[in-house]
């Protein structure tokens, strides 16, 4: 962890990958090589360009990647616009890791895993998926349902198709919102696709995406017989400090930056729906 609260370390952008029309993935290294710090899947980091802003992003890469960290960032405001203009060699500030992580070494261990993501919501789950791939013997079957608006909006399509889809024990189900030329896969929203696929209510489910998608997907899962204790998601609220002190990101008595961002659905149900 960056040693001082609020004080970042410097990172350097060593690769920029254009994933979709509005998502780029940045590879970040410490200035003298290696990673800025270690993390667990689901944790986040504060990235900043001094003078432009600072914001929280989930760490997309898996901790099993020993060389660098990756952040998939969607362009949606002042800081992210600036980040999208960055070239290789640009320095940024990084602090973290913040928050809890998906319980990859506890509750998820030995389980069949169902990942459900919408759009940029794949970013935090990609870290878990690649962690599970790197420790394959510790987990059961892996199924991934991933949807986006168009086929161009699927984040890092090459990795999905060339790696995930080729691996034994992993099933990938892709969908896009509307029919499109050059797409012969499934068409339709994620929650409906999940219902259509119909999953046995065992193992653990990790859901991440826009709030509305999370809501309907969870409903679908509960109808299938899944229990709230089997379902995890991550929350996103405005953040400044990342350490439960600036008072900005609470849901009830929980700070998303510190107690989250990963919540199990039964835990979330005990909190005010103020998110």
């Amino acid at each position: 962890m960056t040693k001082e609260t609020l004080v970042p370390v410097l990172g350097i952008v060593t690769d920029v990958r254009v994933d979709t029309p509005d998502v780029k993935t940045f590879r970040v290294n410490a200035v003298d090589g290696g990673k800025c710090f270690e993390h667990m899947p689901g944790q986040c980091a504060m990235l900043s360009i001094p003078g432009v802003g600072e914001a929280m992003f989930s760490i997309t890469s898996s901790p099993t990647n020993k060389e660098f960290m990756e952040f998939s960032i969607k362009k949606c405001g002042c800081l992210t616009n600036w980040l999208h203009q960055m070239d290789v060699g640009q320095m940024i500030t990084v602090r973290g890791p913040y928050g809890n992580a998906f319980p990859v070494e506890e509750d998820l261990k030995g389980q069949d895993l169902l990942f459900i993501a919408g759009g940029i919501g794949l970013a935090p789950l990609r870290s878990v998926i690649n962690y599970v791939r790197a420790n394959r013997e510790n987990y059961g079957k892996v199924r991934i349902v991933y949807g986006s608006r168009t086929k161009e909006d699927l984040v890092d399509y090459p990795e999905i198709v060339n790696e995930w889809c080729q691996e034994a024990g992993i099933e990938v189900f892709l969908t896009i919102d509307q029919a499109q030329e050059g797409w012969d896969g499934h068409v339709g929203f994620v929650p409906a696709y999940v219902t259509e696929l119909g999953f046995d209510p065992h193992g653990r489910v990790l859901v991440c995406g826009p709030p509305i998608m999370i809501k309907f997907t969870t409903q679908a899962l509960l109808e299938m017989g899944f229990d709230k204790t089997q379902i995890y998601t991550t929350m996103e609220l405005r953040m400044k400090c990342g350490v439960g002190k600036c008072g900005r990101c609470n849901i009830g008595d929980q700070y998303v930056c510190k107690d989250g961002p990963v919540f199990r659905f039964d835990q979330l149900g005990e909190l005010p729906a103020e998110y």
Partner: protein
Amino acid sequence: MRKFAADQLTKIISSISTPVYAPVEDGSMVVYDRYEDGMTLRLDKVGTDKTPKDILFPQWENLMHFRMEGKTIQLTEEERAKEDYVIFGVRACDIQAIKVLDRVFLADPIDTYYAARREHGTIVGLACGEPAKSCFCKNFGVDPAKPDADVVLWPAGDCWYCEAYTDKGRALMESWPTEAADEAAVETIKAEIAVKYDALPFAKLNLNGFDGDHLMEKFDSPKWKKLSMPCLGCGSCTFACPTCQCYDIRDYDTGNGIQRYRCWDSCMYSDFTLMAHGTNRPTQVERYRQRFMHKLVYFPSRNDGMYSCVGCGRCIEKCPMNLNIVKVIKALGEGDSND
């Protein structure tokens, strides 16, 4: 127990070798500021306009500086406080407020900017002689007659009684021209304060049900709407409050780089939780609820029952719309039907 004559007070303050922050007049306000000879000390003022929070967690402070050149960044941290100082004349409620701030800033991971200041300070507490009508500190376990400080002063007209309770306090008091005093005299003063306090209008509020176990019930109360209706979202209550600690982190261009600083913020402001796709507290009802739920329910739920209100009464005095936490406690309290 020791005592010194009333006319020794300013001499004692002036003789302290470190900077001393004390309640002094600043225009029409009483604020905690660096004391210098000639200033008007206002140890008599209950509910100072600004609070000792200003010293530990200033309204704005520099955190670090960046030099940007082409694609490179150079970072220089702001130095942490390293000079000893004294805060002189802090009331019991405001000391409790510092303990609330400690819970936040000294919790892991420690805020080193705050921690350094906290460590270098010695606090001289001041027992309350005359409470204000708006005081309700005892509801939160604060004893106005016995501040929890390094040194405590009791006013007794022609003299001040004083006692050191910590090593820091004993070191500070060492050079004061005090004489031995009768413990019983202070007990009498304490008893008098208790009597005056118990006669106050908000002396006994019912806090039953303000805890984590009743979180959803309190959150879902239909009363928030009516309670918050007059609120302008001006943030005065949060800025006057000795326990409010929400902050923002901002950058500005100094012409010679970027200065990153932090400054107080307020959960009462509409943009406090605003994100690119909207806010989770869209109206003043949610913001108002957040402020009081935090103080009365969320904070105690996470801090062994400690409330993040100390009953100082400042929000009662400062709100332009006459809103305050007492109204909330009365409206949402258990077995209380008046809203």
